[in-house]
């Protein structure tokens, strides 16, 4: 049986970070849900904070330093992505968007994505749906219908007493595990050396099209 590869991207800026904590919880429940389906999974955790300089250098130079390159390559081979960002000034963190801007536009095609976000109050929770979701649909990824938002209060007594954070994490992880189980990564995406259109085809277009 093959092992599913899940990349978990967290763009919290502090250490320790509640964003990472949410990412860990989403990964844990995903592992549990997959195990219940008889599916093995390995998780690769990516802290964008550690890659902040690499990300800036890539934006400036057009190529990725080795550590960042390895992460971008692993996205092209992943069976699922858990993406978690803090919400700053009504949207995903700038670091998060800078990272997404560097992903090969084909690398996430059809890829199941579980969206998560953290913020000071529940009033920001829709940012998952108006900011994060369009980002991933633009990349032709498949974001799960449940996105998990954790406000500061969710970590203590101020959380939702009816549908608690653990409930929401479990629901998102369940949808995600189902999609990852079904997803078949047949081709590695984002190989920059793939010759999509050999010369004969390109020249043939001159006469033929």
């Amino acid at each position: 049986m093959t092992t599913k590869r899940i990349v978990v991207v967290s763009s919290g800026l502090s250490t320790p970070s509640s964003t990472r904590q949410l990412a860990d919880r989403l990964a844990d429940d995903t592992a549990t849900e997959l195990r219940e389906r008889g599916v093995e999974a390995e998780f690769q955790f990516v802290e964008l904070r550690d890659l902040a300089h690499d990300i800036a250098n890539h934006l400036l130079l057009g190529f990725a330093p080795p550590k960042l390159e390895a992460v971008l390559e692993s996205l092209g081979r992943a069976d699922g992505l858990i993406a978690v960002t803090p919400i700053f000034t009504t949207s995903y963190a700038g670091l998060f968007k800078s990272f997404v801007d560097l992903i090969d536009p084909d690398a996430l095609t059809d890829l199941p994505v579980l969206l998560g976000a953290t913020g000071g109050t529940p009033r920001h929770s829709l940012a998952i749906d108006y900011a994060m979701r369009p980002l991933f649909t633009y990349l032709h990824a498949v974001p799960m219908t449940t996105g998990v938002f954790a406000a500061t209060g969710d970590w203590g007594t101020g959380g939702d007493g009816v549908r608690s954070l653990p409930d929401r994490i479990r629901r998102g992880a369940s949808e995600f595990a189902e999609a990852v189980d079904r997803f078949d990564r047949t081709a590695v995406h984002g190989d920059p050396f793939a010759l999509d259109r050999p010369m004969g085809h390109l020249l043939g277009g001159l006469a033929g099209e």
Partner: protein
Amino acid sequence: MQFGIFSVSDITEDPTTGVTPSEAERIRAITTIAKHAEEVGLDVFALGEHHNPPFFSSSPTTTLAYIAGQTERLQLTTATTLITTNDPVKIAEDFAMLQHVSGGRTDLMLGRGNTGPVYPWFGKDIRQGLPLAVENYELLHRLWREDVVDWEGRFRTPLQGFTSTPRPLDDVPPFVWHGSIRTPEVADQAAYYGDGFFANHIFWPASHTQRMIALYRQRFEHYGHGTAAQAIVGLGGQVFMGKTSQAAKDAFRPYFDNAPVYGHGPTMEEFTEQTPLTVGSHQEVIDKTLGFREYVGDYQRQLFLVDHAGLPLKTVLEQLDHLGEILPALRAGFAEGRPADVPDAPTHASLVAAKYGDAEPRQPRPRANRGDNVTGGSPYQDTSAKPAEPVGRSGSAFGPAATRTEAVR
């Protein structure tokens, strides 16, 4: 193996003095730089093409023609000539002309150009960059090989009975390199025609350059121009030398930290680790440069970027002196263990020899003008008035492709 320099023609403030040269000063300097390159024993001078400040080189063949008049040996080329936004007819004419006035010391490197607005300024769409490069080069290739061309494509006004003048020197087109940082289709295009492939190299990790050159070599063999090892490869490089390693680093750091392309990004040490940049002693530059062979194989042309980022003319000339001093070691190092069947970069002399052997090269003489400015049959006295058959389209000066009679293109 050829060694030389390439200039992007930037006019940049010297971060150590705050002085920006005038266009006139920088343009005068480029001739001085090219002449000194010849004096220190370098083989090649290459000039970029830009159509916006802070660059001066909008008209490379004008500059190169003047340099040709001031030098005797230097091979003059471009880095790069924009095959997307220039009219291929004008490229054919300009470079044939440069070939004549330089006595055959001309080749050229084609690139697509990455300055977005240049495309609309010249009436083109950047999203069509690759199809433009493909179609325009196919036309350019024919214009240099067929006296009379009928042409219809997607991008350019059709041509009927058109003759590009002057015909190339000795009726042998200039050798063409295709330059690219990251587009595998361009490596394939170079391979298809048996042309050279030049990897910019300096803005990319070595592992990527390695894969791109490997792709070009494999496709070169696939298209029947010779073995993969015989493909014609050029590499960019970037060096700054000093008496000691530390002196070089101290002198170059302010230029690195403020350079237009990579300034305010990675540290000089990170960039040195990840790209071919070498800032240091003679021996460090020799060692790193000779190391390029280990991942691209034996190759034909090494160009260094030395006159950018606001470095003053005096410093650039000193850097050329350094290059001249390490040149014997580089030549000896690259010659060591180089297989006999790996060709040198084609020159006009080698291309003439490949086409004519011991016979006299063709020297086209026009017929009298018929008064309609359209060529119709043959415009030249040595060919019949019927349209000429395409000849010698393989574009290869060596290996099996050079002697093949049927065109494989």
